[in-house]
């Protein structure tokens, strides 16, 4: 093999294998990483897997060949990383996970995980609901817009939410359908819900985009989003905060994409051989209408 020019010099090279660019959230995530790498003087080798795990694995293999100092990636799915991570370990390249964890039992395969907990996000949405409707009389009819069927955020956000509302029988999920994380599908599905469900009190959307699409469907049906139907969603993109500020959404659970600075810190530490905690959760808040108004001016994504 060749000398691995990339990692040879003084500059620290980081190979980062991104999932894709499937949403504005993801783009913000990518941008944050690229910008903070530049700011930290780290040479970044970036690759985009277009939502395919195979591509990510291939990219990681290529980083091993290129002998980068550190590898970081946001796993497309949690499972299936053992082989390639073992190769990285054999090549003595430390690995950092971002955004999503992997479920490998062998924790020595990666140094640390930096990101959010989707189950916790679902749970937060559920808790808000429990509080908001805690005193309400009668059943609460909930409709749910799920993410892409089979994807980790969809599975986890559904689970976290369901866990919290399960104990209280008055919360009823009357319809739950996939909106594939997009505005267009969110709108289309909500249109159908509005016709097939006689009574909808709450909409829980697995991401903001679907909620934004659903708002339009609700308005077209002559109802008032945020009032006739309360809406809670996850992510905290700018448009959603705007809608929140306008009173069209009632609550947003943040899922923070701006991992860049934290990641670069970790990269430096890991490269220097320092010990790092095995799990670091990004700081994530929740927004209500007031905090949304405050946060809006600085929102970049």
């Amino acid at each position, binding site marked *: 093999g060749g000398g691995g020019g990339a990692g040879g010099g003084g500059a620290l090279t980081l190979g980062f294998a991104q999932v894709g660019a499937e949403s504005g959230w993801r783009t913000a995530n990518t941008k944050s990483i690229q910008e903070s790498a530049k700011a930290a003087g780290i040479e970044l080798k970036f690759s985009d897997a277009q939502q395919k795990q195979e591509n990510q694995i291939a990219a990681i293999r290529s980083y091993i060949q290129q002998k980068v100092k550190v590898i970081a990636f946001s796993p497309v799915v949690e499972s299936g990383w053992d*082989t390639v991570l073992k190769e990285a370990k054999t090549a003595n390249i430390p690995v950092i996970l971002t955004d999503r964890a992997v479920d490998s039992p062998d924790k020595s395969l990666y140094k640390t995980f930096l990101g959010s907990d989707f189950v916790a996000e679902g749970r937060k949405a559920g808790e808000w609901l429990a509080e908001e409707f805690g005193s309400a009389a009668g059943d609460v009819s909930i409709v749910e817009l799920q993410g892409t069927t089979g994807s980790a955020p969809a599975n986890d956000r559904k689970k976290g939410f369901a866990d919290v509302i399960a104990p209280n029988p008055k919360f009823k999920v009357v319809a739950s359908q996939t909106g594939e994380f997009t505005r267009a599908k969110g709108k289309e599905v909500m249109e159908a819900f509005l016709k097939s469900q006689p009574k909808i009190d709450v909409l829980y959307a697995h991401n903001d985009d679907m909620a934004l699409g659903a708002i339009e469907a609700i308005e077209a049906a002559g109802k008032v989003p945020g009032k006739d139907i309360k809406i809670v969603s996850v992510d905290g993109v700018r448009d959603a905060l705007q809608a929140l500020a306008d009173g069209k959404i009632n609550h947003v659970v943040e899922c923070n994409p701006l991992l860049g600075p934290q990641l670069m810190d970790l990269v430096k530490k890991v490269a220097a051989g320092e010990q790092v905690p095995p799990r670091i959760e990004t700081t994530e808040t929740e927004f209500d209408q007031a905090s949304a108004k405050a946060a809006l001016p600085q929102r970049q994504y």
Partner: protein
Amino acid sequence: MTTLDRIKGYRPRQRHLPILATMAMLIGAYVYGASSYTAFGSGQVVLDLFINNAFLLVVAVGMTFVILTGGIDLSVGSVVALSTVVSADLLQNQGWSVIAVIPAVLAIGAALGFGMGVLIQVFEIQPFIATLIGMFFARGLCYTISTQAYSIDDPTVASLAQTQIPLGGELHISIGVVVALVVVAAAAYLLYGTRFGRTVYAIGGNPKSALLMGLDVGRTRISVYTLSGFCSALGGLLLVLYKSSGDPLNGVGLELTAIAAVVIGGTLLTGGSGYVLGTVLGIMVLGIIQTLITFDGTLNSWWTSIITGALLFAFIVLQRLVGRRAT
């Protein structure tokens, strides 16, 4: 009185040209990569192409048969996913052994392929729709088994997955590569050296004629889809080895990649002309494009798509022009 020796004359073997052109360009791309990025020159980069694409290669080989008959198989991605999910489920939840799982999964894939073949042959449903139904069906089955991806911690799978077959130096390949190469060799033999293979070409050339020539068009066509289902299942098993997991979202869009690889390899989508070797090259083309982009490492997501498209364009057009020039 009449002798037709006059009609004899040399015609260049036009059908080999696309393959030669593709091979030349692959070498060109490799030389370019090696001169631009140091680590690219190591032979392992080439071997990694095989390691990363072994499962795709197997799937594409099945697809080659289908396309040679003038058909298309959109179900392969879903069947791959189904195979991984079924394997994971049987190994993790039902406690089956690897030895039992392999034939079961292969049988499921072949059975699905057979079903689609019957729809196409017996009920005369266009291959595009019949296999699209198969695509929905297999993906649907995945979701009914599990909406979650899960890991397989079976020790046999793990050891198979992590076995590296050394080739001297620092070079190594995986078991998947060996399987894929065996499949390629078997397919090449089938196509070149057996009546079944020749019937496949005949059907692609002109199905009506093939029928009138007394060939068993029906059985061959059904076999071809069965074979493709089988290859997809085998590809799924290799993917299980590759990732040690089952995931219902595996292989979304894989059918297009496989079709593209076959067609870039010089096989006509209308059937009747093409080689398995071309398919191997087609996969290499797609793989090397991706590798070049990863080595570059400075492109953001959308530039990745755009440059992928541009490189694809360059390959295809050059292939076309080289092929034409040599005629």
